[in-house]
């Protein structure tokens, strides 16, 4: 447990700037789509796990965890698993939560779609309250799938603007 190496070096200010811009635009767009279309069906589009996805797809764009396949498939798979856990043992909240998160991780590992915010998406399916529970499996499409696609679209645009930045590293 001693720790044998060190943190990677700090990024330059331009990288921090591009990350800020991408995240600002990405989350804005998800929020705008929510207020223009999705609010009408009574479900918010901006869920907590998108804040985490923004860190990866705008702030760590080279990371394998930030690639489109991981973002979209990771979120959608985790959403299904979260809803399933709730439907199975939702009355025992701690159990459903633990089952959702751990199973999401294991499944993301085995499908090579590991995406940290997926754990959050699975957890929200359990603890997100009535509005989430009402959606059932549709949760995986709205808000999860749609929000992920919007964030990815902005990432594809913004992350390829600067000379030394490119995204994605791989599609499949």
């Amino acid at each position, binding site marked *: 447990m001693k720790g044998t*190496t060190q943190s990677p*070096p700090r990024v330059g200010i331009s990288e921090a700037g591009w990350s800020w811009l991408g995240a600002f635009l990405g989350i804005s767009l998800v929020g705008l789509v929510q207020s223009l279309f999705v609010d009408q069906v009574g479900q918010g589009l901006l869920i907590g796990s998108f804040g985490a996805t923004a860190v990866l797809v705008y702030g*760590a764009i080279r990371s394998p965890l930030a690639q489109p396949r991981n973002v979209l498939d990771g979120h959608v798979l985790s959403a299904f698993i979260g809803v399933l856990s709730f439907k199975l043992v939702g009355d025992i909240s701690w159990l459903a939560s633990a089952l959702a998160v751990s199973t999401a991780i294991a499944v993301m590992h085995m499908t090579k779609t590991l995406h940290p915010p997926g754990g959050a998406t699975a957890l929200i399916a359990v603890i997100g309250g009535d509005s989430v529970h009402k959606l059932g499996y549709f949760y995986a499409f709205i808000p999860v799938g749609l929000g992920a696609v919007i964030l990815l679209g902005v990432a594809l645009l913004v992350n390829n603007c600067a000379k030394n930045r490119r995204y994605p590293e791989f599609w499949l």
Partner: protein
Amino acid sequence: MNDQCGFRDLSEEDVLDAMRSMQGYVDITPGTFREIYSLAYDLALKRIRTLGKAEEIMTSPVHCLHCEMSASEAATFMADFGISGAPVVDEQGIICGVVSEKDFLRKMGLPGTASFMTVVAQCLTVSGCLVADLRKLHVHELMNRPPVVATLDTTVSEISELFTKLSINRIPICDATGRPIGIVTRSNLVGSLCEMR
């Protein structure tokens, strides 16, 4: 694993400097990167050592001496081509021996490990010509025989074992009839390990 070129072991500073020069957040610790690098390096060495064949690293075609050449013709030949040794072939072009600088040195009364400076020192201190005895000799009297040879399929690791065991610096590569088609020298060997193909 033997690190011939000093490239196997990256320092944390090497890796950190490299990461600093890259745009963006590189999602790996220097330690993990060094681990992957050493493992990959060892695998690459193993691949080249077991799969690398004489054919891939040899110099070809090879300059050969004829066994009836005089010592002075042979020396001129080797000087003109800038080589320190060559296979010797007979009238049919089949290899019958190998000549190297060591063979000349031995006939000059010096040990095979003598350097150029030994020769100069001797020349300056001893009166009389060091190479007088050589003038009457022919290549077939100078050469080392039987020749140690290899084929196109001989692996790089087998060749390096031969070099070490027999203290030789070159090995002719011959075809099925015994005709030299190329040669592998110590420089070819070192070059092959440093160029990770």
